[in-house]
Every structure is written in C-alpha cells, then in structure tokens.
C-alpha cells in the first residue's frame, strides 16, 4: 500500500513536469486545448453503441498530440491500464447479455455484445487518453486559469488551485504517517486497525487545519488578493483558431459522415 501512495505522488509530479516542456502543443492557449478536448469527447461518446470502425479515425487526435507534445506513450498507457477495472467490470457483461449475431466473418459469428464491449473499450481509451494528454500538455495551474477566463466562478478556480498546492504537502504528510505506523507494527505488516485509522485521520486533519491558517497568513502578508498569476501569456491567436476549428471540424465531419466506410469501399474496389 505505501507503494501505491508513492506511485500516486510520483504520477502527479510526473504529469506536472511533462507540462513544463516547451513544444508547439504546450505553447497553445489552454482554452483552445480545453474546448477541442470537449468536442472530441462529445463526438466520441455520441456514436451508437455498436460502433467500432468509425471510432478508429479518432485515434488520429491523440496520436498527433502525443507527437506534437513529445509525450511518453508508455506512461500514458500505464495510467489508462490502472483505471480500466471499472469499465471492464461494467462492460464484460455485454457479451453475455447481448447474443444477437450482428456480424459474420467467414464462419465466425460475432455477437452484438462483443461489438459493444469492444466499442466501449475504444471509447474508454479515447476519452481518458484525451483527458490525460490535456493535463500533460497544459499543466494544472494553467487549466485553472483557463477555466476562470472562460467564466468559472473565481472562488472555484482559486479553490482548485489551493487544493493542488496543498496536495503535495498533505500527501507527503500522509506518507510519513503511514511509514511511521508500519515501522512500529512489525507483526501486523503495516495493516491499520479502525481505531488507529480514525486517530491518524484526526491528527492529519488537525495538522492540515493549523497549516491552512499559517499558510493563509503567509499569503496575506505577501499581498495575495485571490488573483492567480502565471508567467506564460495567453493569446488566442491564429494558431489557436486553427487548432480549434481544424480538429473540431474534423471530428464533426467524422461523426456526421461515413468517410471511413467510403475509404474502405474505395480500397476494396481498387484491389478487386
């Protein structure tokens, strides 16, 4: 379990350090990336539940972004794998429950359930992947700022920012507590009983509250007014407009028409 915590700690830090790179993708205004991601996700999930072929072209977007932003594919895939169990749990019943044969490849009957299960997995990879890429290429602080610029309540944006600031401190605190506990409990192999657990949480809470007060005073004495400042300048220039309209247009075309089917027929015709 401590390994799990250290892992989470490492992952957040790693995503953040990825966001500090300076590539064309990183330099784009965060609002453009946020909006494009939204259009992407909505287009992907709006397909019918048996759709597979028309989802495939959507992998173009993550592929291009990973290339543009020089993001580590292996790291992103591992993060996808970690969160996949819930989707697998819900989706694995589809092949069982829906046994209508919808597709025949030679003698192989493929049921609707398998098709919808595969479709579900594709959606999962696409949507979650798009979200991860957004963070890895933008960074959390910048996303908060973009949210505020786009009209989210200031308090909510500041709240997000503060949460993120404190997160590292408190996770560090929690890790130290667990480590201290497991060092003192040889025979129990670090498993925490309910009584101890509650006391640990209570202590962590008290420390957090005290720390909040100290930090707030420190911030006030450094003239914090509730406004977030970052160095990178935002400008919604022609690159942003191009990125947003280009990709959104592509998604909408891929969603509205059956370009994939046409291409496939063309190839079949030629090869005949």
């Amino acid at each position, binding site marked *: 379990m401590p390994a*799990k915590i250290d892992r989470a700690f490492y992952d*957040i830090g790693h995503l953040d*350090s*990825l966001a*500090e*790179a*300076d*590539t064309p993708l990183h330099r784009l205004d965060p609002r453009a990336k946020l909006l494009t*991601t939204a259009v992407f*996700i909505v287009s992907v*999930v*709006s397909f019918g539940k*048996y759709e*597979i*072929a*028309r989802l*495939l*072209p959507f992998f*173009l977007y993550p*592929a291009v972004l990973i*290339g543009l932003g020089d993001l580590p594919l292996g790291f992103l895939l591992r993060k*996808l794998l*970690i969160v996949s169990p*819930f989707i697998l749990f819900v989706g694995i019943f*589809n092949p069982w*429950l829906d046994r209508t044969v919808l*597709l*025949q490849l030679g003698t192989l009957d493929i049921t609707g359930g398998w098709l919808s299960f595969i479709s*579900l997995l594709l*959606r999962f990879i696409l949507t*979650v992947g798009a979200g991860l890429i957004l963070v890895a290429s933008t960074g*959390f602080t910048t996303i908060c700022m973009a*949210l505020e610029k786009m*009209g*989210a*309540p200031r*308090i*909510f944006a500041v709240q997000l920012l503060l*949460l993120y600031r*404190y*997160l590292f401190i408190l*996770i560090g*605190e929690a*890790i130290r507590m667990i480590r201290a506990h497991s060092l003192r409990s040889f025979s129990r192999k670090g*498993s*925490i009983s*309910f009584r101890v*657990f*509650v006391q640990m*949480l*209570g202590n962590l809470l*008290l420390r957090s*509250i005290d720390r*909040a007060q100290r930090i707030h005073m420190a911030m006030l004495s450094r003239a914090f007014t509730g406004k977030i400042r970052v160095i990178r300048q935002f400008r919604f220039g022609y690159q942003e407009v191009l990125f947003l309209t280009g990709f959104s247009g592509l998604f909408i075309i891929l*969603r*509205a*028409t059956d370009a994939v089917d*046409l291409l*496939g027929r063309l*190839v079949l015709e030629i090869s005949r």
Partner: protein
Amino acid sequence: MHMADALLSPVVGGAMWAATAAVTVYSSTRVKQSLDEHKIPLMGVLAAFVFAAQMINFTIPATGSSGHLGGGLLLAILLGPQAAFLAIASVLTVQALFFADGGLLALGCNIVNLGFFPCFIVYPLIYKKIAGNRPTPGRLLTGSLAAAVVGLQLGSLGVVLATTLSGVSELPFASFALLMQPIHLAIGIVEGLVTAGVISFIRQARPEILEKAAADQPLGMVPIKPVLAGLALAAVLTGSLLSWYASSHPDGLEWAIFKVSGYEELDAPEVGMHHSLESIQEKTAFLPDYGFRETAEHESGRLGTSMAGLIGGLLVLLFGIGIGLLLKNLALPGTATRPRNA
C-alpha cells in the same frame, strides 16, 4: 464508484454538467457572500486532506479488504454545505484530470453523485436532523451512519441511472442496481463510522473547530435550497427524457447494415461552467437508398459493407499512428525536449 465517460451518452453527461454548473455558481456566490476570509484556504486544505486521507487504508476486520474515507459528509460537517460542495467538486476535478478517475464528460455526474447528494441532500435533511448542532456521541454516530449510508445509496443509484439512461452498457437496470447497491451499503457503513470517528476525535482534541463550523451553518440554511434542488432535478429529468427519445431509435437493427442513423442530440458540455456554449445539434444524414440496397443483397453483401468500414477505419488509424511517430521523431523547430529524468 466514479462514473466513466465511456459509459455516458452526451445527453446524460451534458445534463449533469448543466446541473453541476448551476450548483457550483450558486455555491460560489453563497460562499463569497457569507465567507469570513480564512475559510478559503481552509477549503483548499480540507479538500487536499480528503485527497490525502483517501490514500490511507485501514483493514476491515475479518475480511481481506480495506476501506478508506470518501469525505463528502465530513467536509459538509466541517465547512457547511456550499463550501463543502466546492471542495468536493475540486477534489473530483483533480481526480478526473490526474488520475483519470471518471473523465471530463462524467465529471458532472460524479460531482452530483459524490458532492451534491452528501452536501445538499443528506447533510441538511438527515445528519442535521439527527445530530443537531451539539450532538451526543450516540446521535453523532447514528446521524453519520444514516447520512453516509443514504448518501452512498443515492450516489450509486445515480451511477446506475446514468449508465442505464445512456444505454451503452447492456446491463439491465435491475441487475446493475442489485450489483451496486449492496456494495455501497457496506461502503456507506464504513464511511459513516469513519466520519463519526474523526468528528469525535476532533471534538475531544480541538472542540472549538466544530463550534466554529456549527456557528457558521445558519448562513447555509436558506430557503433557496428547495428551488435549487428542483432545478437540478429538472436538468436531470430533461436529460433523461431526451436520452430515452434518442435511444428509442433502433440503432442496433440499423447497425446490422452498418449504418447508425436517425439522429442524436449532441450537448456540448459547458467547459466554462456557466459560460454558455452553444449546444451543438448535429444530424446525421440518413441515406435510405444505401441501406435498402445493402439489405437487398445476401449475406456477402452485408459482410462487404462492414469489411469496408473496418478496412477504412484501420487505414485511417495506421495513418494517424504514422503521423504521430513522424511528429515525435521529427524535431520540430522550437521544440525543447522535456526533462527525461523528471
């Protein structure tokens, strides 16, 4: 218990986003009006606390499994409903972005399930009624238990409803509910025990924190709440009705000729919260002659169509991967490489 994007239809996800945006704006306004200044960093720290606390697991006796804190109810007790809602919403946002728990479209659902229910329904209607402002240990325990159990039941019902309404999973409503509700009964009991335990620990160690929280609460008790709940419900209902309408088109049948048609509503999620994005309504062209021609053919005709679709899809996929690889290896001008050892 986090809802995922892949299980959602845009209509359901969009409706939940709308509801969440409304409640977020309302909560922010209330917090801004009523806040003494020190509460803002307190909200941030407590949200981070919930995050950190979720990483400490305790062993559930006699089972191999372990439990941890959810935190919605605890925050509502410490901060009052509006501030707690914002704090939980921020926790879920960070989880969605960094841990890919849930997803961006599902964020609305998750905030309603794990934030709105504990803070605005369960806390004032159950916890407050049972525990009152200065609860005895017994009342504190009963209140937390009842509130946490009901809150988690509502939350998991929310997941089941949203999934069923979206129609991506084949699980029938009843079986899915039967799978989810009992698990969340157990989780709810654990949550209630932990919440009561932590609150009574704080009461013994630093009673003034709770006094302060309780004193702040009258500000949170405003008559606008029923209106708000009505609003959220309306959004949910609209969404569900729309989605039923959308799913009543027989996609399954039409897919057999590899053509999803009819039309679907597309709701763009409001990324800027209350910044109103125009909702996109997109209609997919229905090509009747295409469909009829294919069905008129025999088995191989059907296969041909789907093969074409698959081949086309795979081609574009390969093309995409190619471009990605190319971009990655081609050092673009002005591209600073990321620190590899970070």
